């Protein structure tokens, strides 16, 4: 692995320095955890260790989904955008293989999905978004997708939904090592190595990854037209992730985490652009630290994070356009269980962000603080539970709208739940909205809105057949929706749109076990109507029309077979019409992309296993574009080998 990291030919001095830093810090952490293991091995812990991510379970009545281990395995070397495309309802606006990928979740914009890493929002303070193609699935060992708005719990931007990436500790699990490599079409080479150790008091993990691809795929636009080759889409990514959790005493635990990542990629031309030599380099350092004190009835958490992100953009020559941001977050939280079934949480969050960019006149800074509280009650019978949460945030000197969330779920009969929740939502303007020169508006208002959802969830096992399913319908209105519109001399953000998003999400999964075999069938459908309700100017034909790049219909089907050491999965994703004009007169055709996975695992020794997996993407050679004029590859392959040792 290290040789893979070290063999790239174009590492500058700074990167080499950082790499040396990574190596030494990783070694220190490993040594530290190994050393510690021998000392505290035999200590017995009285308290049950809380491993669930914070606040999960506080959003009662909302639809949520945990990405299961088989989905994880299928996407072990992939990025989060690809995982969500294949395995979730989130529509991923992908600009091509390895290119920018942003979300449209429940009819919201890319700014309306909060992506949280161990509870900290990864969205850039500059544009409020996160490029999901830059997030490796490896970055978390637990991914949860929470549908619907919950800004009272997760803060600004958790409007369409929230994606939780967590690194849960793995105490008491012993050593685990995983080494994987894959080779794919278009010069796609990936290597990963991860190791973790755990005993009663320590949990430490480190992971390294490297990805390089030419992505020079061939594509055809229509029948009888010449094949074309994608240009300037090469990419290289490398990174390090490490987490150490230490149970100091029965009451106290500390955790530290560090995530470094570097990415360098070409920005390919659009179909109508002659050529492109544009290049983008992203580099980020993300550091977290947490301390937790557990008493009999209450738990105190103190957590902090430091994110530093840099983006260098080379539009057409060697002249770089730089933007850098850093975010410091501190959060204190008190959980209190006054009695059985009751859980009360109060917390305070302070977030300081600063950024520099050629687009800003000075180096803007922002201090946001928030007071939040939540309460859940679970009936003794377990038949129903309810939650309420509220949050008041202050941005610099101004109060942003108060938000709240109320939800409940009731067991109708064994295995069937009725869920409902209502929420008040907000999203604060980004640095670009506030400070961009020219155009930024310092007194821009936060977006605010409200939403509600009702759903029924089913989970039953009858003999060899397990069935789970959920149908949810929702409605949400966001007001003061910010868009950039032209002014006399320049574009400027304005609080002009009002967007009403509503829809129905339905999903079902059937698992049949026959002897050593397991068959899985899953089907999900999403219907999203997300319309602008207010004219932006006279003659605006967008009123009551679907937002651009928001498919009204989409769906996913999955068939899986597992027989002993062998497994096969096929996933087909349908994406309906996406409009490319706000009057819905221009559009992109619907498409279905099918992907297949074959995997075979064999045991090596008592604790090791070796697996080989073959992946075929776009099985039926669908010609499609997610975003207009950004071609996507035809059928392509990847073969991977993975060695695992120990208990995961």
């Amino acid at each position, binding site marked *: 692995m290290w040789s893979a990291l070290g063999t790239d030919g174009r590492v500058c001095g700074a990167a080499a320095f950082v790499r040396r830093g990574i190596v030494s810090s990783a070694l220190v952490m490993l040594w530290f955890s190994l050393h510690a293991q021998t000392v505290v091995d035999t200590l017995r812990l009285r308290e049950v260790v809380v491993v669930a991510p914070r606040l999960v379970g506080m959003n009662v009545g909302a639809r949520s989904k945990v990405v299961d281990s088989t989905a994880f395995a299928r996407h072990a070397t992939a990025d989060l955008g690809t995982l969500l495309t294949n395995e979730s309802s989130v529509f991923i606006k992908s600009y091509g293989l390895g290119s920018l990928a942003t979300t449209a979740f429940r009819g919201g914009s890319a700014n309306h999905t909060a992506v949280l890493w161990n509870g900290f929002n990864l969205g850039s303070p500059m544009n409020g978004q996160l490029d999901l193609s830059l997030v490796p699935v490896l970055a978390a060992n637990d991914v949860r997708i929470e549908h619907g708005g919950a800004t009272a719990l997760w803060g600004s931007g958790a409007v369409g939904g929230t994606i939780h990436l967590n690194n849960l500790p793995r105490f008491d699990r012993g050593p685990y090592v995983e080494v994987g490599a894959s080779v794919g079409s278009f010069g796609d080479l990936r290597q990963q190595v991860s190791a973790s150790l755990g005993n009663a008091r320590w949990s430490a993990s480190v992971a390294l990854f490297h990805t390089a691809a030419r992505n020079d795929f061939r594509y055809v636009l229509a029948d009888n037209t010449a094949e074309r080759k994608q240009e300037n889409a090469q990419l290289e990514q490398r990174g390090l992730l490490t987490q150490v959790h230490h149970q100091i005493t029965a009451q106290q635990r500390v955790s530290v985490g560090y995530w470094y990542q570097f990415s360098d990629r070409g920005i390919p031309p*659009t*179909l*109508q*652009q*002659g*050529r492109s030599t544009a290049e983008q380099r992203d580099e980020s350092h993300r550091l977290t630290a947490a301390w937790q004190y557990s008493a009999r009835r209450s738990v105190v958490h103190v957590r902090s994070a430091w994110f530093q992100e840099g983006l260098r953009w080379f539009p*057409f020559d060697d002249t770089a356009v730089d933007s850098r941001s850093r975010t410091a977050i501190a959060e204190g939280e008190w959980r209190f269980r006054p009695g059985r079934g009751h859980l009360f949480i109060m917390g305070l969050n302070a977030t300081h962000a600063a950024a520099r960019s050629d687009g800003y006149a000075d180096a803007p800074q922002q201090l946001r603080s928030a007071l939040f509280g939540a309460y859940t009650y679970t009936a003794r019978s377990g038949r129903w539970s309810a939650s309420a949460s509220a949050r008041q945030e202050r941005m610099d000197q101004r109060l942003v709208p108060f938000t709240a969330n109320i939800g409940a779920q*009731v067991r*109708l*009969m*064994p295995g*069937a739940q*009725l869920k409902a929740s209502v929420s008040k939502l907000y999203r604060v303007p980004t640095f670009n909205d506030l400070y961009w020169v020219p155009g930024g508006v310092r007194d821009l208002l936060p977006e605010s809105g409200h939403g509600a959802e*009702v*759903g*029924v969830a089913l989970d039953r096992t009858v003999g060899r057949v397990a069935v789970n399913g959920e*149908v949810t*319908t929702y*409605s949400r209105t966001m007001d003061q929706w910010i*868009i950039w*519109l*032209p*002014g*006399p*001399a*320049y574009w400027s953000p304005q609080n002009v749109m009002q967007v009403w998003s*509503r*829809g*129905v999400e339905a999903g079902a999964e059937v698992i049949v076990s026959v002897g050593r075999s397991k068959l899985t069938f899953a089907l999900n459908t999403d*219907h999203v*109507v997300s319309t602008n309700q207010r004219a*932006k*100017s*006279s*003659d*605006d*034909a*967008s009123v009551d029309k*679907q937002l*651009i790049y928001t*498919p*009204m*219909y989409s769906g996913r089907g999955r068939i899986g077979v597992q027989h002993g050491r062998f497994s096969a999965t096929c996933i087909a994703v349908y994406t*309906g*019409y996406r*409009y*490319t*004009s*706000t*009057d*819905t*007169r*221009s*559009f992109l055709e619907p498409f279905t992309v099918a992907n297949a996975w074959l995997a075979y695992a064999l045991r090596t020794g008592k604790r090791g296993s070796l697996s080989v997996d073959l992946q075929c993407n776009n099985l039926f050679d669908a010609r499609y574009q997610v975003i*207009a*004029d950004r071609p996507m590859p035809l059928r392509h392959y990847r073969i991977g080998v993975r060695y695992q040792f120990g208990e995961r």
Partner: protein
Amino acid sequence: MNGMSARMCVVSAMVLLAFALQSCRKDRPEPPVEEPNAPVDRGVYVINEGNFQWGNASVSHFDAATGEVVEDLYAPANGEALGDVLQSMTLHDGKAYLVVNNSGKVEVVDPATFVSSATITGFASPRYLLPVSSSKAYVSDLQSGSIAVVDLQANSITGSIPCAGWTEMMALVGSEVFVTNQTRRYVYVIDTATDAIVDSIAVSRGGNSLVLDADGALWVACSGGTGTAPALYRIDPVSHNVDATFPLPSSADSPSRLTMNGDGTVLYFLNTDVFRMAITDDALPSVPFVAADGRNFYGLGVDPNSGVVHAADALDFTQRGVVHRYGADGASLGTFYAGRIPSAFIFH
């Protein structure tokens, strides 16, 4: 399961179903018209810039006599989209030259059928094409720091004239070409005999458009910036002197799309609203000719024969634009739809 739970199940299922049905919508849009257009012989071409990197540039056509509108001339005639960001169109010698900025090319088409006969390539970010003789043209550029010299017979680039910054609209007066510049505080003067810059005339930054009036004076609109005021300039093209400067009152002003009526006596320009002033006026107009009233005016043109003013509203820049037509007295003569982001008009 007890009766109560069963009832709740049924009720909730019905509520869900009701919600589901209520929100259902048809998503299939009207398919676009693919049939070729009849040749156009008189009227106005509307340049539709299109969105940057969306590849949806187009040319619309409007015939005032019949009221007939063609949404796009190019794609039906050539079987493919025109390209990414149509910056300008120039009619010359029985041909139309379409400068497609982010596709880095100039399409040469028949003005009636719009069938392409040649593509001139090799530009970095071309903006405007100005024929300086029957066989030679200059093409300004946003990125390259030079003006390309094009052979109109061979349809190829034959040379370049170094010119710093973002060169924009150009005008030929006698044997000299005057070049506006968006990122420099000068109007540059090129001698067409030597293809070299011979002079520079100090103005504000943001030079974006220029016209020659009936008295032979050159008018230049500058949007200002980096400490320079937005202003209109009147330049004597013979002496290269600035005769008069008309600064706009606020740095937030931004005059653009400077154009003329047919006899060269009245100037029109955009500055949020549509303004007009006689070339003999000694001050800028204080009252707009047409107030924007919530519209996003982006393009402006005046029919040289009828004097009808065409003002293009680009709306939110993500749908087709609306062109408003006004008589010389300011009375509305109706509207028609153009393509995405209409920015300029070519009358023929």
